[in-house]
């Protein structure tokens, strides 16, 4: 039980990081990024490439976001800027296309084999070896928290952070007041990709990488954001951990075969519940 809870929480923190990136660009640009998971995997492959070159993959948490920022920025300039103020459906289609292109490119460059990077961090044992915590997972959670805090401070304090928040609240007003929204959008998408890069690097040392496993990460972050709402970091972190816990327990109690199924069931349940709540609210407005 303790084992499952700890595993769930550590994993959940990692999910929360990915979800925070999604919440950020969803809130600012009104884009649901289906390629989110694939950006994560690409970030993971960057760390893996470093590992192959003999560099410790943990450095990936610094290198990968830098490279991914530019990947995100370029992606914005090439594709996203054309769909940013269009219908939500168009952006979903566009990012879905990007996801497929990324999968095939990663398959082409890195091959279809499943790969792992070794951190050699060892394991922490608790309660007389009955609970084991891989240090790599603790490291992953720790790094996620550091980056998340850094990002919150950055959003509050820096000029760009304020510009991003202003654009999220009202893009037109921000534009009138002299914010270069185009630049803000590009930066937001870049930051999102960078967050994915960090998460990917952490996944390369805790789980496995494969060109086609991006989608489950997209679905998880989508769900966390739906539960937590946009632009609310503590809620994102909490719902991330909640999801991690839920997954581990579903796995432990119902069996592994129901793990992903349980996540989807929860998604359906939450969507229905939210709709129900919203319709109640609407009655007051009548």
């Amino acid at each position, binding site marked *: 039980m303790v*084992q499952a809870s700890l595993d769930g929480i550590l994993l959940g923190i990692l999910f929360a990081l990915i979800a925070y990136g999604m919440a950020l660009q969803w809130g600012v640009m009104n884009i649901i990024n289906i390629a989110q998971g694939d950006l994560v995997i690409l970030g993971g492959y960057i760390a893996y490439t470093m590992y192959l070159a003999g560099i410790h993959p943990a450095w990936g948490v610094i290198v990968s976001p830098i490279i991914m920022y530019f990947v995100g920025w370029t992606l914005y300039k090439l594709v996203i800027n054309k769909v940013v103020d269009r219908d939500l459906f168009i952006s979903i289609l566009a990012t879905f296309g990007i996801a497929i292109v990324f999968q095939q490119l990663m398959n082409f460059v890195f091959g279809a084999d499943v790969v792992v990077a*070794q951190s050699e961090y060892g*394991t922490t044992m608790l309660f007389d070896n009955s609970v084991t915590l891989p240090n790599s997972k603790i490291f992953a959670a720790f790094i996620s928290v550091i980056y998340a805090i850094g990002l919150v401070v950055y959003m509050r304090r820096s000029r760009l952070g304020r510009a991003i928040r202003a654009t999220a609240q009202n893009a037109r007003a921000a534009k009138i007041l002299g914010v270069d929204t185009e630049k803000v959008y590009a930066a937001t998408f870049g930051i999102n990709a960078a967050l994915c890069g960090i998460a990917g690097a952490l996944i390369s040392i805790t*789980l496995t990488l*494969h060109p086609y496993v991006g989608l489950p990460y997209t679905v998880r972050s989508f769900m966390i954001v739906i539960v937590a709402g946009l632009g609310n970091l503590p809620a994102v972190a909490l719902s991330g951990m909640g999801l991690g816990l839920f997954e581990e327990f579903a796995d*432990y109690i119902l069996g*592994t075969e129901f*793990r992903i199924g349980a996540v989807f069931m929860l998604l359906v349940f939450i969507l229905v519940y939210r709709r129900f709540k919203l319709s109640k609210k609407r009655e007051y407005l009548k």
Partner: protein
Amino acid sequence: MNKLVKLFITSISAITLALVSYTSSFAKVDGEYIVLGSAISLTGKYSSNGVHTQNGYNMAVDRINKMGGVEVQGKKYKFEIIYYDDESNPKRAAQLAERLIKQDGVHYMLGPYSSGLTKAIAPVTEKYKIPMVEANGASRSLFTKGYKYLFAVLSPANQYLEVAIDLAVEKNGGKPVRIAQAFEQDAFSQDVRLGILDAAKRTGSEIIIDDKLPKELNDMAATLAKVKATKPDVLVVSGHTKGALTAIRQISEMKVDVPMLAMTHCDAAKLSKQHGKNSEYALCASQWHKNLSYKDKFFGGGKKYDKDFKKEFGYAPPYQSAESSAALLVFKDAFERANSFDRDAVRDALKDTDMQTFYGNIKFGPGGQNVAKPMILFQVRCKGDTCENKVVAPTKWASDKFYHPIPKWSERS
């Protein structure tokens, strides 16, 4: 601009037309060539194993052609293969099989990679009565449908790890064992599971954990937590390369102690290389190993095949390549015995196949599966930091003794 686009489209369609008419000028036998067709995964998630398969086919075609080709009615023929990329997609594979048969006039097929794609193609080849020799579809359900034109050179999936259970019982002094198992939810892994169920029933062993892993599997910590709590005698895991890599990573991280760990896809996952010492003592099922003592006149033995393959393609052949090469040897043998290009005559000859290749003995059972070749088990053993796969069963080919039980993590350096 518009004109340019039009010109572009016209030229593309002209080229396509030219290509189509070129390829359809092939037939089952074109001049001195016997044309075989294959849909193969060159892109998509099976692309690495798809390429291993293609390399195996190509290697055998070259070798057979160089050594005199196929003799039918006193005339020498050479093999030639038309390939299409099925993008690792079953629907696409079935379409391409139709296309090979109807447009390209192919009368003999080689299998694709994976059980799933073979399952997609088999109904098509069956419908057109096209003999297909396949080397990479091991799922048991392929051989229970009563297909008459399907022949597989490999052992069916349910045999993969049965031997491991027998071995565990033997090490337990002939007494039944307690088994924990986790299998991915796909045709192949579930067939491996059926094999374990049979073996458990036969030996009176008890299955205490029976988890199914999702296809998006990347975390099996919960299963392993159960294993830690229940302490089984054997842990069996099968979930393609992802399953093998995830299992070893998390078993070593969570310090799960089991006396015996049996898996599939260790060599495809390059387990000993990717996980090094953490993968030591893992027991793996394999269709083939270069140390086996089977022989044929085309490739010599396993070691020679290994050497030649390395020279040609720059890497050691995985069993997927070896079994693919064997498929061509089976076709050659069948054509020569049929002494005809009649599809049904070739099919009958295939049915009566009884031969030895460097890959193993081949004789087809009533469902088309190879019944003459046992699976082998190897164990990952390390010397210093280099780890290697050593054959440990069956005893006839064992190069090393099976190490049992696996030392506890606290005792491992």
